[in-house]
C-alpha cells in the first residue's frame, strides 16, 4: 500500500481525524481556562473597588462559565475517547490514552484538567459560605480560595499535558500537518507554552498577599520573607519546563513574555471594566476616587521575564558542558537570583504602596504590617535559592515528561 510520507502532514493519515479532534478540544479547553483567568483578574479589581454584593457578580459569572465550560469539555473528551478506545479506532490505544477506573480511556491531560475543574466547582459554594461567615475582604489565603486556586493549578497543568502530548505526537509522525499552521508544530508549541503561562500567572496571583499583606511567615522562632520563595518556585519551574519541553533557545523567555503580556492586558482593562459597570449601575466605590489604571501594576509582570532569560541562557550554556542534572540546578539558581531580588523589592514597596493590609487586616486596621527585618529578608533569599535549585531540577523533569509523553 502506498502511503504519503508522514512528515508531509498528510490529511489522509489514519490518525489525522483523531489528532484534529484532540487539538480542537485542547484549544477549546485553554480558551475556557483563559476566560476564567480573565474573570479572575476582573474579580480581583471588583473586590477592591466594589466589594461583593452578590454571589453571581459579572466577574464570577465569567469565571464559572470558564470553569464549567472547561469541565464539560473534559467530560466530553473522556467519553468520546473512551468510546473510540473500545471501538478500536486507529490512534486511540494504550500509547495515546491512560486508563481511569479500568473503564474510561482518555489523554492524561484531559483527565487531570477535568479533576481541576471539578475541584474549582466544589470550591465555589464553599468559598461563598466562607464569605458569608467572614466578610467580603477575606484574604486570598483562605481555605476555599486556596482550594479553588489549587484546582485551577491542576486544571492548567492538565491543559499543558494535553498540548504537550500532541506536540510529541506531531513531532514523531507529522500527522498534525505543517500546511495549516494552527495545527502544525509551531501552533501547538505556542499553545503549549501559553497553557504553561497559566501556571505561572496563577502562582503570581497566589503570592499577592505575600507582597501586600503578609510579607513574612513566622516558623517557630524564625521569620522568613515568603514572596521570593513562591515566585522563584513558579518562575523557575515553568521556565525550565518550557525550555526542556521545546529544547529551543528562548522558550522560557517567550513563555514568561506571553504570561506578562496577558497579565498586563488584564490588569490594564480590569479597572476600566469595573468603572464602566460601576458607573452604569450606580455603585458606591469603596476606595476614594474612581477605578483607574495602575501603570506600575501593568508593567510589573514584565519583570518576570528577566529570571526566565537567566534560566534560558544558563541551561543552554551549561547543557553543552555538564550533565543534565547539574545544568538544571545551575539554571535554577541563575533564575532564582534575579527573581529573589525582584520579589524582595516588590514586597518592601508593596506593603506601603498598595495599603492592601488596611483592608485585609481588620484587627490592626490602622497599621500596615511592619517592614520585614533584615534577617527575614536574608533567610527568604537563602530559601529561595534552594527552592530555585530544586525547581530547576523539578522543572527539567516535568519538561522531559512533556517531551516524551504521548498519552
Amino acid at each position, binding site marked *: 500500500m502506498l502511503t504519503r510520507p508522514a512528515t508531509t502532514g498528510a490529511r489522509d493519515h489514519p490518525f489525522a481525524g483523531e489528532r484534529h479532534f484532540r487539538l480542537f478540544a485542547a484549544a477549546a479547553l485553554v480558551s475556557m481556562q483563559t476566560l476564567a483567568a480573565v474573570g479572575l483578574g476582573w474579580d480581583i479589581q471588583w473586590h477592591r473597588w*466594589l*466589594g*461583593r*454584593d*452578590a*454571589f453571581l457578580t459579572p466577574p464570577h459569572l465569567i469565571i464559572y462559565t470558564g470553569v464549567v465550560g472547561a469541565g464539560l469539555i473534559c467530560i466530553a473528551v473522556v467519553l468520546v475517547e473512551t468510546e473510540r478506545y473500545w471501538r478500536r479506532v486507529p490512534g486511540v490505544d494504550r500509547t495515546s490514552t491512560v486508563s481511569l477506573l479500568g473503564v474510561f480511556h482518555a489523554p492524561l491531560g484531559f483527565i*487531570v484538567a477535568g*479533576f481541576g475543574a471539578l*475541584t474549582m466547582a466544589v*470550591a465555589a459554594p*464553599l468559598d*461563598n*459560605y*466562607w*464569605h*458569608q*461567615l*467572614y*466578610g*467580603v*475582604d477575606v484574604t486570598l489565603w*483562605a*481555605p*476555599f*480560595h*486556596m*482550594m479553588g486556586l*489549587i*484546582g485551577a*493549578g*491542576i486544571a492548567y497543568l492538565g491543559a499543558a499535558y494535553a498540548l504537550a502530548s500532541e506536540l510529541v505526537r506531531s513531532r514523531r509522525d507529522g500527522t498534525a500537518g505543517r500546511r495549516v499552521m494552527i495545527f502544525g508544530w509551531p501552533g501547538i508549541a505556542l499553545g503549549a507554552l501559553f497553557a504553561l503561562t497559566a501556571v505561572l500567572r496563577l502562582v503570581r496571583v497566589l503570592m499577592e498577599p505575600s507582597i501586600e499583606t503578609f510579607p513574612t511567615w513566622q516558623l517557630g522562632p524564625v521569620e522568613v520573607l515568603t514572596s521570593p520563595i513562591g515566585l522563584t518556585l513558579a518562575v523557575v519551574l515553568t521556565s525550565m519546563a518550557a525550555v526542556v519541553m521545546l529544547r529551543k533557545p528562548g522558550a522560557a523567555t517567550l513563555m514568561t513574555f506571553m504570561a506578562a503580556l496577558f497579565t498586563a492586558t488584564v490588569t490594564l482593562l480590569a479597572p476600566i471594566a469595573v468603572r464602566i459597570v460601576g458607573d452604569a449601575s*450606580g455603585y*458606591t466605590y*469603596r476606595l476614594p476616587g474612581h477605578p483607574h489604571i495602575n501603570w506600575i501594576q501593568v508593567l510589573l509582570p514584565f519583570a518576570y521575564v528577566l529570571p526566565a532569560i537567566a534560566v534560558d541562557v544558563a541551561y543552554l550554556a551549561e*547543557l*553543552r558542558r*555538564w*550533565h*543534565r542534572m547539574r*545544568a538544571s540546578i545551575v539554571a535554577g539558581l541563575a533564575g532564582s537570583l534575579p527573581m529573589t531580588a525582584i520579589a524582595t523589592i516588590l514586597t518592601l514597596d508593596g506593603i506601603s504602596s498598595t495599603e492592601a493590609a488596611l483592608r485585609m487586616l*481588620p484587627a490592626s486596621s490602622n497599621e500596615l504590617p511592619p517592614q520585614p527585618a533584615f534577617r527575614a529578608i536574608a533567610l527568604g533569599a537563602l530559601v529561595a535559592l534552594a527552592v530555585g535549585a530544586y525547581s530547576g531540577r523539578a522543572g527539567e*523533569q*516535568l519538561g*522531559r*515528561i512533556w*517531551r*516524551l*509523553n504521548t498519552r
Partner: protein
Amino acid sequence: MMRRWPAALLAVLLLGLSGISAAGQGPIRSETRYAGAYTLRIDLYSDPAFTGRRLNFDVVVDASTADQLRSVTLTGSAIPEVGTNASPLRATLSHAGQPVGGFQGYVTPQVRGSYRLHLTISGPAGTNAVDLPLRVAAPTAIPIWFAWSIGLAPLLGLIGFSWGQRSYLARLQAGASPGPPAASTPAAT
C-alpha cells in the same frame, strides 16, 4: 414494616405543607418609623435574615392627606454596620398596588452581621430617610482546621500525582527508542 412507609410519606407531606403555609403567613416583625410628614410601617418576613436568602419586606407609607401620597417614591439599601465586613446592598422595591403608598421589597444579604435598612422616601411632602436595624445570620461555622483540611485536600492529590510522575518519567525513558548513543551530549534523551 412495609406498612410504615405511607405514614412516613404522610408525615413528610405534612411537614412540607406546614413549611409552605408558614411562608404564606404574615410578617414576623413590624416596625413604625416617622420620616417627616410620612409614617412608614415596615413589615419584615424573616428576623433574623439569612445570608444568601431574600429578606422580603413590605413598607406601607401613610400621610395626613391623600395628596401627599401621590407620586411617592421609595428607595432603600442595607448598609453594613461597623464590624460587618460587607458591601452596601441596594434593595429592590416596587409598588404593591394596594394600598396606595404600599411597597414590596427585598434585599439578599451576603455576609452575616448587623445592618441597617436605610429607606429614603420622596414625595410632595419632602424627602426624608429612616433606618431600621437588621440582623443577618449565617450557617454554623465549621472549625478553621477543618476548613483548611478540606481546602488543602486537593493538594494531596497534586503531590501524589507529582510523585507518580517521577516513576512515569522513568518508564517513559526506558520505553524511548534507544537510537544512536549520544556520548557527546549527556543531556540528550
